[in-house]
Each structure stands twice: as C-alpha cells, then as structure tokens.
C-alpha cells in the first residue's frame, strides 16, 4: 500500500478539531487532577484515621483499576442515578479523578520532603491549620512537585484517546471516523500517532530541564 498525501490533506481539518478537543480534555483534566490530588494529599495527613483510612482506600482503588472501566462506569452509571453529563465532561471528570490519585502521591512526597522544623515553627507561632498549610508548607512543597506533576500531564495526554470509547471526538476518534469514511486508515492513524510523539517528546525535554532547575 502506498502513502497518499491527498488523504492526509483531506484529514487535516478534522485533525485540528481533534487536537483542539484533545487539548481541551487535557487542560481541564489536569486542573481537576491537580486540585483533587491536593485534597487527597491533605486528607492523608488528617488528624483522625476515620478520614485517613477511607481516603487511602478510595485512592488506592481508583489508582489500581483501569481508567477505561472507570470511564464506562461514569458514562453509564451516573445517568442511572439521574446525573447527566456530556461525553466530554464525563471524560474530563474520569481523567481528572484517575490522575488525582497519582498527583496525590506526588504532593504527599513533596509535603513529606518539607523539613519537620517547618511544622514545628508553625506550631510554635501558633499559626492556625489553614495558614500552616497555605503559607508555610505548600509553597515549599510546590517547587519540588512541579516536574513530577508535569510528567503526569504528559501521561494524561497519552490517555486522552480513551475518551474515544464514549464518543468524544478527540484525535483518535477523528482518525477512526476518517478511516471508516474513506477506507484509508493508514494516513489518519499514522498522522495521529506522530502527532502524539511530536507533542509529548518536546514536553518531556522541557520537563527534564525544568526538573534540573527546580529540584536541585
């Protein structure tokens, strides 16, 4: 079979639509995972085990079961409970929720790396819990976690094609529809595969340099 450039040209408009949807899902999913992960991480340090235990169990469960099944769970089960979301919203929530359990571990490691003296100083100054977290601990933890969080953004990018399964028109779904319509799968699928590498590789190089600058 030969490579057909005109098929690539025909696919391009849909390709850009797909890029837009993929990036949309990525950005929103990242925001959810960053905030929710922080909530989990703070809950890991809750004073009572009645919070620590359930949160630990829930995050462990979400982290060790497939995103695809969680996606279907949200997509099919939530409407049964009377909650209706669009496919894209469901996908964003699923990705955000899934990766929040990863970012939670990153935050936790970052928080654990803050020297104990900082906690003690906050206690000595009798700072309230909220100020201890937001003025003392988190600003110091964030510096260390940025590169690791970035890595999960790249990982999320590579999981956005899963949204295809619930009918979100992201890159892979666009390629598949194009293939089904024209009987030429080679060009769209190859273009999409290369697009992922073209986005992911510079991103990982960027993160590597960011890591060198921030962590050491």
């Amino acid at each position, binding site marked *: 079979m030969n490579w057909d450039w005109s098929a690539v040209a025909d696919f391009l408009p849909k390709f850009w639509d797909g890029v837009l949807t993929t990036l949309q899902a990525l950005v929103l999913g990242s925001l959810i995972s960053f905030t929710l992960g922080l909530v989990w991480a703070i809950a890991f340090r809750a004073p009572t085990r009645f919070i620590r235990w359930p949160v630990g169990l829930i995050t462990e469960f979400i982290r060790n079961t497939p995103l695809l*099944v969680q996606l279907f769970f949200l997509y099919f089960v939530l409407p049964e409970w009377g909650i209706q979301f669009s496919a894209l919203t469901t996908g964003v929530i699923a990705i955000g929720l899934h990766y929040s359990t990863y970012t939670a571990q990153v935050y936790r490691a970052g928080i654990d790396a803050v020297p104990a003296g900082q906690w003690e100083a906050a206690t000595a100054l009798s700072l309230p819990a909220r100020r201890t977290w937001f003025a003392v601990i988190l600003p110091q933890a964030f510096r260390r976690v940025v590169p690791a969080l970035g890595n999960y953004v790249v990982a999320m990018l590579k999981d956005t094609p899963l949204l295809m399964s619930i009918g979100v028109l992201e890159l892979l779904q666009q390629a598949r529809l194009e293939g089904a319509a024209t009987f030429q799968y080679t060009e769209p699928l190859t273009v999409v595969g290369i697009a992922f590498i073209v986005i992911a590789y510079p991103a990982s190089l960027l993160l590597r340099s960011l890591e060198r600058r921030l962590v050491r």
Partner: protein
Amino acid sequence: MTTGLWEHWVLPGIWITIQLTLYSAALAAVVAFAVGAARTHRSKAVRFLAGFYTEIFRGTSALVLMFWMFFVLPPLAGWQLVPMWAAVLALGLSYGAYGAEIVRGALNAVSPAQREAGVALSFTPWQRMRLILLPQAVPEMIPPFSNLLIELLKGTALVSLLGIGDVSFAAYLVRLATQDSAQIYTISLVIYFVLAFLLTRGMRALERKAKAGIGQKSEPVFKGLSLRRPAGRARELEPMTRGGGASMNAGTGGAS
C-alpha cells in the same frame, strides 16, 4: 446477573485478561532488558538506537499504537496478526519501553567500582553483565517493575475496544444484556483490583527472594493494603512508570 452471563463472558474474560497480562509482561520484560542494557552499551550508535526506541514508544499512546497495529500494519506488511497477538505486541512494545528506563536506571545505580572490578578481572562485557551487574541490579528493579505491571494490567482493558473478550468487554456485553450498569461495572472494577493486589503480592515475594540472594532484607509479603511501593521521596517525585521524561538515575539508588 445470571449464571449464564457469568460463565460465558465474565469468567473467560478474567482468563483472557490474565493471559494478556502475562504474555505482554513477558514480552515487555524481554524488550526492557534488551533495550535497557543497550542503553548502557559502549557504542554510541547502539545507545542512540535504544534511546530512539524508548522515546518513540513512550511518546505515543498505547491505544493509538494498538489501532495502528490493527488497521495500518496489515495492509503495510501484507499479513495480519490474530487480534490477541496484535494486542500483546502493542502492549509489550510500549510497556517494554517504560521498563527499559527502569533497567537502565538500575544498571546505572550499581556502583562503578563493581564494573571496574569486573574489568580488572578481565571479565568480558557479557560476563560483567551476567555475573556482576544484573545480580545487583535486578532486586532494585522489582519494585518499579511491580508498579509497571499494574499499569500493564490496567492497559489490557484497552483491548476491549478492539473486540477482544477480556473483562471490560464482558462488562460491556453484560451491561447490554441486563441493562444494569452499576452492578457489572462495580464487579469488574473489583476484579481488576483483586488481580492488581495479587500481582503486587507475587512481585513482593519475588523481591524477597531476589534480595535474599544478595543478602538484603525486605518487607513481608502480606503487610498492609498498599499496592504501590511505599512512597519514598526519591521515587514518587520521579515517576518512572508513566509520563514523558524524568530520568530516574537517582530513583532506584538507595531505595527500599
């Protein structure tokens, strides 16, 4: 859910998921050791090729790769793989690239004096690898490999989108048959969780054995619920199983 659905779809689904995981893990291990070792090779060309391989396969999405192998490879190559083997190939090649980074990190973490001692004793490179480097590096690889194995198990769910009858596919069919999504999807999530739990305990037993072989202690096989390795700072801040980039030279170093 009726017993018929259970016996005809879910149980065979579990078996297919297990098979997929084991076969892809075997392929990924072969790829990981070959490519990871090649990345520590003397020759620059070999190192470059191995690096190229890992960047390509870590750069693209496993699902896109799977679709590519399904739709593009057959007309391109003129032959077609059985769906199951196309899936194993896609999973094994992409997770092997992640594993290669683990192997490389662990090999680099072995003290340079050990390698120099091998040179001083005029071991061949192959003897150095087999008798000096690997016995010390392998126990360090097992915890990150254990995490990667769970990622692989989760990755097998993707094959259901290609119509292979694994647990996720069975869940989809049972949903269509019973019109009750909550039940079957909860069950299948629990199935995956139990499989992941068993895999980690198996890996922990393996780690105990490997560490005992070089006279190190390790934690008991059944202790606590945690599936992932304890979140040491060095390890969690440098996620090596997923994501694009962070080098993990320091990650495996003083761990466990």
